[in-house]
């Protein structure tokens, strides 16, 4: 028999190193073991991309500042060879990059760190009284009609705004339809308010969602509240009032978010990530980046970090699958297919995910049963199934959109190739072993996927796997140990029960 000692030493070493790394993260960096009630800190990264033409380049981006709910702790930029300047002028902050000459694809990163603080202090610059906007003739009449109608039913700046949004949202209102024909909703609101000399502006806002990448800026409307002397936020589409706690205002001027001279096809996108670092720690965090012992992935750009937030969850899914197969003895179709389905569930939300999965696989099986009669070669048949799956997904997406089920749109997140193989395998299973086996294995896969999904979306699991990389080593050790388990599976206790009772 082979000596197992080195194996157990190796496993023990993994546990010890994993534990030590985690303890180090906890004690030195102050990362709490449990996720906080609210997110302590957000790291938001703007990624500016453009094609330089070879001439001098000057790029200017509106930069965020402390605001209601958030305190700006620090900011940094990363750009090769560019000179950087941060400017502030009457509350308008901007970051500017310049270079004598650049050519080809350019990437500039700007990173800002915010502390979540409901009592954040920030300066409010009172606005100037705006000059009334004048529409062209026909629309001016419509605007005045709409405005006077709204004015009648309001008592102040804020109620007037509310009423304007309500009228713009009314599909039967012809004045609104005429206005929205030529200009954006948010522009219409601000212009209409200016006709009553009410200060209002369009701000660039960002919805903070942990681990999101490639997010875009959304316009919101701020209206000056003359009574309380502060700005009040309105969602121009829903009319919702007040600033949600997960909304960050990036800039007070939506239209001058990004300006690039000397470059073409400029684009800006945002990535964000939440961290649970205690506020005391936040201030002395700068050491972290230079620390070699800091094994964490937290020194990477936010976009990569956000990606790792999902990647680091996969070992947890794998551990669950190992457990369900070795200890429980659950039958699934395809060993790690449930993990991939669970990753899709994270994007689609559970219920829509399950319905989408059942719809796709169910319809796919029907199409596949027709294909099996055509006597095709295997590779061609699977390719046909893949195309069928894509068609099913597009049909369901269109139907969902038409009947107003926006959740249905997320069905596109399913991994199509994997689903096609699942359909193929289940269809063969159906032909050979009957429908019962298909339901057992399909049900097993779905159950595993749901359990993996629940683990992956658990706030605690997300917090631990991302913040304590040492934990991954411990998961590895656990999986290695499970690989040595020679006891009975739960399913065998049932299978061999007639034998035990004899």
């Amino acid at each position, binding site marked *: 028999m082979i000596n197992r000692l080195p194996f157990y030493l190796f496993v023990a070493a993994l546990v010890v190193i994993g534990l030590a790394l985690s303890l180090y993260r906890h004690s030195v960096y102050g990362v709490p073991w449990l996720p906080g009630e609210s997110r302590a800190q957000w790291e938001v990264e703007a990624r500016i991309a453009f094609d330089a033409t070879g001439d001098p380049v000057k790029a200017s981006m509106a930069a965020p500042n402390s605001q209601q709910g958030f305190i700006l702790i620090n900011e940094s930029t990363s750009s090769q060879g560019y000179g950087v300047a941060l400017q502030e002028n009457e509350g308008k902050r901007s970051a500017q990059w310049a270079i004598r000459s650049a050519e080809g694809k350019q990437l500039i990163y700007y990173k800002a760190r915010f502390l979540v603080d409901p009592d954040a202090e920030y300066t409010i610059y009172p606005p100037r009284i705006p000059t009334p906007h004048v529409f062209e003739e026909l629309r001016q009449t419509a605007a005045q009609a709409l405005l006077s109608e709204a004015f009648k039913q309001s008592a102040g700046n804020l109620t007037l705004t509310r009423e304007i949004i309500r009228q713009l949202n009314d599909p039967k209102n012809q004045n609104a339809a005429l206005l929205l024909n030529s200009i954006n909703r948010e522009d219409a609101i601000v212009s209409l308010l200016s006709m009553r000399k009410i200060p209002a502006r369009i701000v660039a806002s960002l919805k903070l969602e942990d681990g999101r990448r490639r997010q875009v800026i959304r316009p919101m409307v701020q209206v000056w509240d003359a009574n309380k002397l502060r700005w009040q936020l309105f969602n121009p589409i829903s009319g919702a009032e007040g600033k949600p706690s997960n909304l960050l205002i990036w800039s007070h001027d939506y239209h001058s978010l990004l300006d690039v001279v000397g470059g073409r096809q400029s684009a800006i996108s945002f990535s964000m990530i939440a961290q649970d670092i205690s506020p005391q720690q936040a201030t002395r965090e700068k050491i972290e980046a230079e620390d070699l012992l800091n094994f964490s992935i937290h020194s990477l750009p936010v976009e990569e970090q956000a990606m790792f937030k999902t990647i680091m969850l996969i070992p947890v899914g794998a551990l669950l699958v190992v457990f369900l197969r070795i200890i429980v003895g659950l039958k699934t179709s395809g060993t790690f297919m449930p993990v991939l389905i669970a990753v899709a569930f994270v994007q689609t939300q559970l219920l829509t995910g399950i319905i989408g999965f059942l719809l796709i696989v169910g319809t796919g099986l029907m199409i596949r049963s027709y294909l099996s009669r055509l006597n095709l070669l295997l590779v061609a048949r699977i390719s046909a199934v893949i195309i069928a799956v894509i068609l099913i997904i597009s049909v369901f997406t269109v139907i969902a959109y038409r009947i107003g089920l926006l959740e249905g749109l997320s069905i596109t997140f399913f991994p199509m190739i994997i689903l096609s193989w699942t359909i193929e395998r289940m269809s063969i299973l159906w032909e050979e072993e009957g429908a019962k086996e298909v339901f057992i294995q399909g049900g097993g896969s779905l159950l595993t996927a749901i359990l993996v999904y629940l683990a992956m979306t658990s706030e605690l699991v997300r917090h631990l796997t991302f913040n304590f990389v040492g934990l991954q080593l411990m998961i590895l050790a656990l999986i290695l140990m499970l690989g040595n388990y020679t006891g009975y599976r739960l399913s065998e206790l*049932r299978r061999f029960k007639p034998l035990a009772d004899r």
Partner: protein
Amino acid sequence: MGIGHSISARVKWLMMPFSRHFCRPKKLHQRGILGMNKRNHSYIGRYNDRSKYPLVDDKLKTKFIAQRAGATVPELIGVIRSQVHVPEIHQMVSDWGGFVIKPAQGSGGKGILVITHHKDGRYFKASGAELNQQDVERHITNTLAGLFSLGGKNDVAVVENLIEFNDNFVDFSYEGVPDIRVIVFQGYPIMAMMRCSTASSDGKANLHQGAVGVGLDIATGKAVRAVQHNQPISHHPDTRRALNTLVIPDWQQLLLLAASAWEMTGLGYIGADMVLDKTKGPMVLELNARPGLAIQTANGCGLLPRLQKVEALKAQGAAHATAEERVAWCLQAFAT
């Protein structure tokens, strides 16, 4: 004391629905039942050299090594290796009555097509179901494409003569050849069962598909117990034949043939699938490097004590060089 008692009573009550469907692991252990994890880890992983798997995973190779070792095997009618040769099947089988088409690398009995007789391009399965030429060709096409094979690899279709099974087995099997599975551990045949197909297993001999498993006494080849769907039965569900009257003829010869699989393959833990032909006696149908655990249910006893007995024998250094010696030892050691 009183509190402790009520707690344990409560636990018992809570566990009721559980204990109705599940048994305690300790009980299984006492009975020496081999579990899937232990089989994979301690027997297949330890005694089966992966490099030798192709010998048993490819039925064509198994056939050749068995023939070389002097074992009888079902006659080979032909092999179809590529798509262009598929239509030749009709010509190939024209002189044979019944035949079997199987994927060389199939697993779990997948893709085995049994044709009992054919006439003018019409083919008949054991169940009486009729297939036309296209159906048979499609089956071969699927086989070649790897539909039934491990990992979906491209495969070849093996066409074999249909075994005419021994008259002793009439009514023990419904629409299909009954085969005898022998677990051979390091050359010692330690447990055996006959697998009889039923209407619900569609002529297939896999227990999880509804076939009947009849446990066989290693010493005598007589039936000890029969199960279907994990539950004991006394009569074949379709033919109503009493299963306890089953006796395998040529039993010792069959065990010898099974035991020789160790020399043929070098694999320590295998399931040898045997058939008894009316005229040619025991034949090796195929070998399986990952034999299932249902044989324990069929025999009503666990594999572990027997496996450990052989392991202990090996540890003592007692080596039986020939298959005859090993079978003789088993006839004594595992008599029930």
